[in-house]
Structures are given as C-alpha cells and as structure tokens.
C-alpha cells in the first residue's frame, strides 16, 4: 500500500516531466515544424480544427495557423517564464542571504522592505509596471521578476538562519574566511535544493502572470505568446472556441506539468522527506 502511494506520487512527477519535455521539444523544433512566421495569415479565417490537416488546430480571426502560433508561443512563454524567474532569483537570493546571515538591524530593514513588496497585490503591481514602462519583452520580464522575488528572499533567509549556526560555518569563521566568501561558498550552496524546487514552481506562475498580462493587452505586441492568443480569441469564444481553447489548454498543461515536476523535485531533493518514506 505504502509502495503504491509512493509510486502514484512519483508517477505524477514523471508525467509532469514528460509533458514538459514535449513542450520543450515543440519549442525547440518550432522553426523546423513551422518555418513561416506565426503572424502570417495562411488560410481562411475561422477555419475549424481537425478539418484541414495542414491546419490541425484551425485558424484564428485573421486566418493565422493556430498550430504554428502554439509552438512558437511555447518558446515565448517558456522563455519569459524562465528568464523572469531568474530575475526574481537574482534579486531574492542575495537579499535573503544577506538578511539571514547579517541578522539584527540589516535583517529587520531588508525584511520590512520585502514585506512592503508582499503587501502590494502582485498582479496589480505588474500591470502598473508594464503600463509605465511600455509593454515590451524587457519590461514584462522585469515586472514579473520584481513581483515574484519576495518569497525567494524569505525562503533563503530562513535557510541561511539555520545554516549559519552549523559547525562548518563556525569553522570557516574561525579560520578567518571573509563574510562574502562564507556566504557564497559555505552557506548558499546548501540552500540550492529548496531554491531549485521553488524556482520550478515559480516558472509556472511566471507563465501564468505573463499570460494574464497578454490577455489584458499588456503583452509584447511583437511576440506571439499563449496569453496573447487566448486574449485575441476571447470575443469569439461562442462561435470560434478553438482560438482561445488550445492556447489556454497549453498554458494549463504546462503549468500543471511544472507543478508536478516541482513536487517530484521536492521529494527527490529533500532528503529528510525521502528518508521518512523508506
């Protein structure tokens, strides 16, 4: 029974990884599968899916191939998801590490600063940032990064707080290693496991955030992303459901897969939990 439960849990992660690999494969193969720009009208508008094999998912309001949009959109959505997560990590990890390691006043100041960002509704802040900076790739990545870093900072701070009392850290202090060196070579490497888990989950929410922005018309108008496709088709939902449905389903699958894979990673990378199961 125990074994079956464990297996079921792992299977979720395996399925997640498989879906993710498929999406990544499509993203990589996009230029080979559909060498033409996904913006190019190629057939009659509002062509239903599964009718014409050249356009398996049908066409949108302008006669653009939805299948082409979907695979090219995979590149955009994944890329924005990953890059903006990296931005969030770049802000959150050092901040959390410094706060946790320094403690005292510095910790208080940095944590109040983090809380300030946490109290602002993140989606509203993202909308404001994108609207001010003009909807373009850079500003969207930045906005998502800026609203997503606080949980990272808090996680890293917590880890560092517990790690800095370990003996090997004390030892490093005793032999006179400089503080930055201790943080980067002794403490941070040991926080990587939870950061990876959190990062994989954050990619999913970054993709969702980008889709929501694009849906509202705040996406980069030069990039075909899934959120843009859902938004562009929403007024036609009643008579041309496929325009919004397929990209919406792609978002759903990818985010689900990222969460499943994240859970799996959590199991694999968290030795205490893994030991408990054996």
């Amino acid at each position, binding site marked *: 029974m125990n074994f079956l439960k464990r297996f079921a849990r792992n299977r979720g992660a395996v399925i997640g990884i498989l879906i993710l690999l498929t999406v990544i494969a499509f993203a990589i193969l996009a230029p080979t599968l559909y060498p033409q*720009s996904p*913006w*190019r*009208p190629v057939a009659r*508008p509002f062509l239903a899916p599964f009718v014409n094999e050249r356009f398996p998912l049908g066409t949108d*309001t*302008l*006669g653009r191939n939805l299948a082409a949009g979907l695979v090219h959109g995979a590149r955009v959505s994944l890329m924005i998801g990953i890059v903006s997560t990296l931005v969030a990590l770049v802000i959150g990890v050092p901040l959390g590490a410094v706060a946790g390691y320094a403690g005292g006043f510095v910790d208080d100041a940095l944590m109040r600063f983090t809380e300030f960002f946490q109290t602002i509704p993140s989606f509203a802040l993202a909308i404001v940032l994108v*609207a001010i900076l*003009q*909807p373009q790739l850079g500003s969207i990545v930045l906005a998502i990064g800026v609203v997503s870093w606080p949980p990272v900072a808090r996680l890293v701070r917590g880890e560092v707080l517990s790690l800095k009392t370990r003996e090997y850290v004390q030892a490093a202090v005793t032999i006179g290693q400089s503080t930055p060196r201790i943080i980067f070579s002794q403490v941070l490497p040991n926080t990587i496991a939870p950061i990876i888990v959190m990062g994989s989950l954050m990619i999913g929410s970054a993709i969702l955030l980008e889709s929501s922005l694009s849906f509202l*018309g*705040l996406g980069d*108008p*030069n990039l075909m992303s899934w959120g843009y496709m859902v938004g*562009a088709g929403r*007024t*036609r939902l009643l*008579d041309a459901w496929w325009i919004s449905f397929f990209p919406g389903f792609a978002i759903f699958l990818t985010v689900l897969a990222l969460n499943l894979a994240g859970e799996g990673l959590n199991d694999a990378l968290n030795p205490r939990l893994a030991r408990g199961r054996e």
Partner: protein
Amino acid sequence: MMARVTGLRLSLALAASIFALGAAVAQEPKKGGTVHVVVQPEPPMLMQGLNQNGPTNMVAGNIYESLLRYNEKLEPQPSLAKSWEISPDAKVYTFKLQEGVKWHDGKPFTADDVVFTLDKFLRDVHPRWRPIVNAQVEKIEKVDDLTVKITLKQPFGPMVMTQEVASAPMIPKHIYDGTDYRANPANNTPIGTGPFKLKEWKKGSYIHLVKNEDYWLKGKPNLDEIYWQIIPDAAARAVAYETGKVDVLTGGSVDVYDVARLSKLPNTCMTTKGWEMFAPHAWLTPNVRNGILGNKQFRQGLMYAIDREFGKDVVWGGLGKLPTGPISSKTKFYSDDVPKYTYDPAKAKELIKASGYKGETIRLLNLPYGETWSRWSESIKQNLEDVGVKVQIENTDVPGWTQKASNWDFDLNFNFLYQLGDPAMGVARSYISSNIAKGNPFANVGGYSNPEVDKLFADAAIAPTDKERQELYTKVQKVLADELPVLWLLEMDFPTIYRCNVKNLVTTGVGVNDGFRDAWKE
C-alpha cells in the same frame, strides 16, 4: 451660375422624393412608442455647444438643432432656417428662420439667439467654428426677429456646410448671455429647440429623453421616449440587442465580427448610411522627419506592400471601401484621377531597395481603440516584414496614444479622421504646413510640407465656384497620391444595426445624431 438656393425649392424636391418613396412603402408613421438605443461610451456632457465628442453628438443632436441639416447626399435642408439666400457675389448669406419655435423652457427662439450663438458663444468655445468665423466672417447681424445675415470677408464655398448640429448647435441666449459658459449650471439640463427633451440622466446607466410636445414641426416627433443605454462591454452590448433590451446598436458599438452575426437575426436591419458627413478615413501617418520615412520612394514601397484588401475584407469584416487619396469618395470634390496603388510586394521590394533602406526598425504606433485595430497593426506588420522592412509594434492606452501622436513620437501612426462634408474643413488640416503643431493628434502630425499643396488647398477653400474648387481639389489629390504624406487604408463604414420595425431612423448625413426627429416605431 446658380448663386441662390432656397429652402422652398429643396423642400419641393424632398417632397417629391418622399412621394416616390411613399408609393413603394405606403406607410403612415405611427405615433408613440419607446426606443432603446446604445450609446458608447457614456458622453462626458450633453451641452453640445461645449462638447462635440461622438457620443455627445449622438444624444444631444436630438435635443439641440442648427440652422440647417444635411441629407445623405450632404445637400443642405431646412431646419431652424426655413430658407436661405446666397448673394450673387457669394459673400452674403441670409437665413429666414422658422416661425413659432420655442426653447424647451417655453421662451421663443429668435434671430437674437442665432447671432448670440454664432457670433459670441461658438466663436468663444467651438474648435471648428472658431477658425471659420475668425478667418472668413466679417459680421453676423440680425435683420429682424426672423432673419439673420452673415457677411463674409471673401467667398467661402464650405460656408453652407458649416451649420450641422454638432458644428453649430443653437444655444439659448437668455440662459447663457453674460455668464461663464463652461460653469453655467444649465449645462447639466440642456435647453434646446429639438424634438426631444432631457428628462433624466442616470450616470452609468441610461439617458432618458422624452418628446417635446411643443416642437415647431407639427406632428413631429413620432416617438414618445428614447432611452440611451450605457453598457460598457462590447459583448454585453451585443447580448443586450439579442435579448431585446435595446433596439438600436449605433455605429461602432459592437465588434466587427458580431455585425455579420447580428445582422442575420430576425427583424434586424443593418445600414452603413448616416455617416456621410463624417466619412471616417483611416490611414497610417509616416513621420516624414524620421530618416527613411522622409523618402517618397520608401513611402510608395510601403503602400504597395500593404494588403489593403485584406484589411478591409478580413480585419474589418468586409466593411468599407479602399480609398484612392485624401478625399473620401463619399465627399464632394472627390476625384479618382490619381496614381493608384495595388497590393504588389515585388514592386514594393524594388522601391524600398531603391530608396536606400538599410534595415532600420520602424516603430508602428497602434491605435488603442480595441481588438480590431490591434489585428490591423499585426497584419500590416506582417505585410511590411514580407518585403524586408523591420517593424516593431508599440501598444499604449488612449492618453498615451494621444500624447505620442500629438508630440510626433512615432514612425508610423494609425489614425482616422472625419471629413466633415467639405475638404476645406476635414481634409486640408492633415496636409497643410500651417497645421504642423504639437498638441493635437488630428493636426498634420507627420510633418509633411509642400508649398504647392498649401497653395492648392488655400485657393480651393475660397474659390468662388464649385467647378473651380473641383479643379483645384482634383489637382491636389493627384499630387498627394503621388507623394503619400499619409498611407490611406480604408474609407470606414460604421454600421447601424436596428430592429426593422424602427422606421425612418437613418435619413440624414449624420444618421442617428439627428435622426429621431423623423423616426417612428411600428
């Protein structure tokens, strides 16, 4: 040369046409009834002398009236002026007013009101009347209680087109004279002479107009009440029509793709008429100050590269017509004797190569008026990239667009402008160099400047006869179609969708804006 036009003669012609129509329809207008109409967005105010936004005009054009109204061919018809005469030297216009006209508060309407409106009120506040009255009019005077004389400095052909209700609504002197016009409390309770009176305005919900029982035109209006419904979402407006909550969807109030679907519903009529006075003309403005965009060959290349048919048929659902030049084919003085551009990517590539284009990125400023405009930007971007021009679309909101367009911060900019019945009023402003000024997105924002064009437009505005004006306008259209100061994309159609039992709704060149005087419900 005919220099005298009387209202009587026109009314006879009108009567004849109504007779012909009556034989086919043979229906007597029915009295009474309520019509629900969509107005989008909610007007900022209903005092038409102070505000001429599209939604304001739709509602207030049925509350206020002007001296003249215009039929679908843009021929002037009597309204508050019973008849009018133009002196042989085309410099003196004499308007005879209708008898027994009363303001909604019961006071009589007289020549004093006309003089006050044209000489004082509108001269002060109206952005379109002000330049005309300052540049063209020598004096406006009362002859007797029912006669007004306007003397011009020089012949000005478009004068007879300036008296549409949004351009020159009659304002009650006894309420506004000597007050601060913009702060007058009466602005919230508009007093006009029109067929309908404002009963209630529930902000965010509806505007309720009721029949003016003392209307000067006996037997009109036919309807008892009009409700202008305010519904902020396009899809919800379409649903409101389907469920019977509203009877009329005014132009532009629903998504273009919904037009075809809604038009097929039972008891539904659709017309694209009623916009002749505005004749909206859509185009892309190249900023000729910016590098390669100042090159004529490059602009011609762009024109050949854009699939304008696709824009009309797919993006705009087949509505509208391809323009040939600056003047809409629905407007007087249109000429098709101009260089024409077809969709020809090969030729576009040649011209763009010859122009010396080196792969600079061209920024395309999208007009934030909804999904259709975004789709249009995307398809044009694709067209241009097909011939090797790099394009980057920029999205912004309405204030952002207004700011960027007004301050020339764009490479290519979408826009659409009203023609206003005469090239001197609606067309020249986009091409003449004296109108290159920051601060107005509807000025000559592209910065095109050509002394020959300036002179042609200036001469054409004041040429004494229509024939001479036509010659000059034909010439200027030829020059502009070759030089392409802007890339004309579409003569837009804004369809009005309504239940077929609402009759006589669109009978003038401004459609529902003043159409409820004659409308009736079966």
